[in-house]
Every structure is written in C-alpha cells, then in structure tokens.
C-alpha cells in the first residue's frame, strides 16, 4: 500500500496487530456482544412492543435497535483498547512496544483506529441481524456515520486511558461496571429521556452517552430528544478532551515509563 512507508510502518503494524488480536477471538469480541444485544431486543420488544410508542410512527422495536447498536459499539470500542493495554501490562509484553521507536501519536492512532474498527464491526453486525426482526429506516446516513465514528473514537480513547491507568484487572472491571455500564444504561438506550422525571432528565443531559445515542438515533428516524447539532458538539468536545488527555498521558509515559 502506498501509504505504508518505513516511517509509518510501525503504526500500521501496531494497527494490524490490534485488528488481528480481536479478530482471532471474534466469537468473544464480535459474536458475543451481538448475541447479547439480540437478547435485549427480544426481551424488551416482547414486553413493551404495542405498549410504548416513543416517537410517532416508530415501533418500539425499531426505536430500540439504534440504541442497542450504539451501546454495543461504544462498549466494544472501549473494550478493545483497554483490554489490549491492560493485558499486555499485566503480562509484561507491553515492553515489546515500549522498546520500539513508535511515537506517542502513532501509538494513539493505531490503538484508536483498531478500537473504531471493532466498534463499527459490532455495531454493523447488530444492525444486520436486527434487520431480520424489523424494518429500520435510514433517514440521515451521514449523521449515523458521524456519530458511529466519533462515538467509537471517543470510547477507544477512553479505553486507552483506562488501560494505562489500571494496574490490575479488577481496576479495569471498575471502569466498566461503575462508569461505562451506568452511563450506557442511563443514556436513553431503552427510552426517551422525556419519559423521565425532570431531575433525571437534567442528570441525563450531562451524560455524553445520551448525546451519542440520541444523535445516532436521529440519523435513523429524523427525530431526537435534542438537536443533533448540539449532540455532535458535545460528543466532539468530549472526544477532543479525552484525546488530549490520552496524548498527554502517552507523551509523559504516565504509568508506562518510570
């Protein structure tokens, strides 16, 4: 490939290795989250279909699918970079990267890109399987792509931060159980925030996951709880903040180089 030169090959190699790392265990990294999303879809749609209509003319099952896609995409983007870094730190193999001439920016781009690819692969797989159950419109595909890319990049960056910060697997589990899961479940995957009491609506509005899911859903139905422009600004600003923090950690060698 023309883009691969000796000076960029290091970054390409790391990107390729990170892709292969999750692809070698695709049952665990792709198939498993798709099955989990489908279980949510079957249970919630069975219980609530016909009882709840959030947007006019949009069936609850259809409403649920973009939320589940985004949830899987975000969780898996985070899991890709965070699990790779914490595993190599705990096993000691991170030394093979630290001994190389890779720059902190190349390290960041390679890990982030692999996270984005895994997030998109899982999100797309959920979409393709869910289409068997219900017809899902694609009103504004550009918004769908924009939120999918930005959301997965944001979580890929957050995964790098968590991977660098955590020193043990249980610290990583704390990131997932006490930050990622609550923010995901309280973001409107299963409901519109307008159905919440005013206090919880306010709380939801400081949750960046809400904007990722609401903006993503706008791309499918052309309706959302808040303007997609506001959502893209919040998500973009959050990504920039996390990317800046990640680059700062990598540049300083925080918890990687003594």
């Amino acid at each position, binding site marked *: 490939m023309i883009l691969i030169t000796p000076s960029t090959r*290091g970054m390409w190699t*790391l990107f390729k290795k990170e892709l292969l790392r999750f692809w070698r265990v695709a049952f665990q990294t792709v198939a498993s989250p798709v099955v989990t999303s489908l279980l949510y879809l079957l249970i919630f749609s069975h219980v609530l279909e016909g009882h709840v209509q959030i947007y006019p003319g949009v069936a609850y099952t259809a409403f649920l699918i973009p939320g589940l896609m985004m949830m899987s995409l975000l969780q898996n983007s985070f899991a890709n970079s965070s699990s790779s870094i914490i595993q*190599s730190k705990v096993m000691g*193999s991170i*030394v093979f990267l630290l*001994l190389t*001439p890779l720059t902190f920016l190349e390290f960041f781009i390679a890990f982030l890109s692999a996270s984005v690819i895994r997030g998109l692969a899982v999100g797309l797989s959920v979409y393709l399987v869910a289409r068997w159950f219900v017809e899902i419109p694609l009103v504004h595909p550009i918004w769908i792509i924009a939120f999918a890319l930005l959301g997965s990049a944001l979580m890929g960056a957050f995964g790098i931060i968590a991977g660098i910060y955590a020193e043990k697997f249980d610290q990583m589990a704390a990131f997932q159980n006490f930050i990622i899961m609550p923010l995901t479940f309280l973001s409107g995957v299963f409901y519109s925030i307008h159905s919440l009491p005013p206090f919880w609506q306010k709380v939801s509005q400081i949750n960046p996951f809400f904007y990722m899911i609401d903006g993503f859903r706008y791309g499918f139905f052309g309706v959302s709880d808040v303007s997609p422009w506001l959502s893209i600004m919040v998500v973009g600003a959050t990504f920039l903040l996390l990317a800046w923090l990640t680059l700062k950690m990598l540049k300083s060698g925080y918890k990687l*180089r003594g």
Partner: protein
Amino acid sequence: MQQKYHQPAVKINQLHKQFGGLHALNGVDLTIEQGEFFALLGPNGAGKSTLINTLAGLLKPSSGSVSVMGFDTVNQYQESRLNLGVVPQELVFDPFFNVREMLRFQAGYFGRGRENDAWVDEVIEGLGLTDKAHTNMRKLSGGMKRRALIAQALVHKPPVIVLDEPTAGVDVELRQMLWEFIKKLNRDGHTIILTTHYLEEAETLCSRVAMMKQGEIVALDTTTNLLKTFTGKNLRVNLGEVILPSSIAPLLRSVDKGVFTLSLSDVAQVEFVLAELRAASLKVQDLQLIEADLEDVFLSLVGSNQEGKSQFSLAGAH
C-alpha cells in the same frame, strides 16, 4: 538505519536515577565501544536492571545522559531505539500470535517489512526455532520462549544488543547454543552488553567487565586486567565430612561433599591453613591450589564476607 560513525556504542554520563528516596543509580559514567562484548555484573539491587532500562528508554534518567550509537535516549529516542535490541529478563510474550507472526510484528514496529523476512528466517534458524515458527507463543516451553525473546530483540538488526540475564533458567545445551549464536553476532560486528549471574560466562565471553554495587560502578576493566589485579588464590582441600576450625572458617567460599574451597588473599596463607588443620587433627586427603576467577574478584569488590556470598548465591538462584 541511521547511524553515527565513530561514536561509542553506548555512552553514559553522570547518570542518576532516583525512585523516591532510593538512589538506584548514583552518577554512573560508562563508555562501551562498538564491537565490544561487555559484561555488567553485580548483586541484586546493584542497579544493573535500572541501568539497562534507562538505556532502553523504559526509565527516564533523573539527571545525566545516555546515548546509543551517538543518539540521546531521551531527545533522539527513535534513532537510539532503532540502534538497540533488548532481551528482557522476564519470559514475557503475547499469547495471541505464533513465533513468526510475532517476529514480523516486532520488525514492523521498527519500520521493516517483507524485505526483512530473509533476516527473520536467519534468526529463527540460528536460534533453533524453525520447528516452532508456527507455534503459538503460549505453547512454547520456557527454553523456547527464551529463544523467541532473543529473536524479538534481533529482528531489526540492531548494532547494539543488550541481554539481561539471557541464560537464567536455561539448560546447558541451550545455553551453549545461545552463546555460539551471540558470539557469531559479535564477530559480525554487533556490540553485545550482557548482564549475568553466571560469572564464568562473563569470564569466558566478555572482553570487558563493569561491576556494580549500590548504584555505582566499582570496577571497570578488561577481564584479563581484573583477574591480574586480584592476587588471591583458591585452596581446595578434601577433608571429608568435618567441621572446619573456627580460625579458618572466615576463608570458606564453598563446600561440596567434604571438599572445602577457601579463598586466600595470598599464597603464603596456605601454610597458615595447613597448620590450623594439623592443630585440629584434621587429615588432608587431597589439596589443590587454584587461580582466582571472576567470582573472586566480584566477591572481593561487592563484599568478600559471608554477606557478599549470600548476596551472590541469592542472585544466582534468581
């Protein structure tokens, strides 16, 4: 690969490294010329690993500077790492890939692509890994993992190679094979820097030796000169299963099945030892006077008393 000619392979100036209140390196100055086979010796906690990790860029110096082939390890870290291959002490590996994949990835990180495959094959063959090239890393035995670690450090053809305890826990046959391969690399012009607890290896292989103690270099010379400056000898006496008289017990270096090895500071001490044995009515079954080796020099510099010996034996068992 970018190289500066006529530069030392490694140059360390007034290197200090502190971890909180611990001064792990205390003003180390060291120059290693290109093509040398150099040994870095010292007991546990002497600062060898800290020095190597600083050289490799895994640790940042508190003050002072380190360069590899003329490139500063902090300000010109990319060039310096391109010129350096490090074999870590721990048996670490990536469990997702086989040996050949892992070596290709490692070469790729250093900017090398398919054109490097012939060299990767040479390294695989040279280290006896051909049969295991497509075996997943986690399925390799300890010895094979050690070979793969060495291969990883060599895939980008670095002119300077650091081996941190490469033969720890390795059987004799593999050790011989590794040393033949590393000697060949040295003959081909690679600078080899070795840390080892097997002092006979350093004595046999290395042209120059630095001994470290408490973050400082306490001896730095050619192996021959270090041995010459040490005038002591070893007296090996076969006494059978007896208790050594307390007057000569401080000279004891080791004992094995009734054969006592005593460290003498001077050959004249032989008479004193024999007199004490006679006085204790101990019968000498056999007696042998042996030249001092690097271990004697090492013990005399880092601690010739029992404490020094226990440090050394602990280090050897590590």
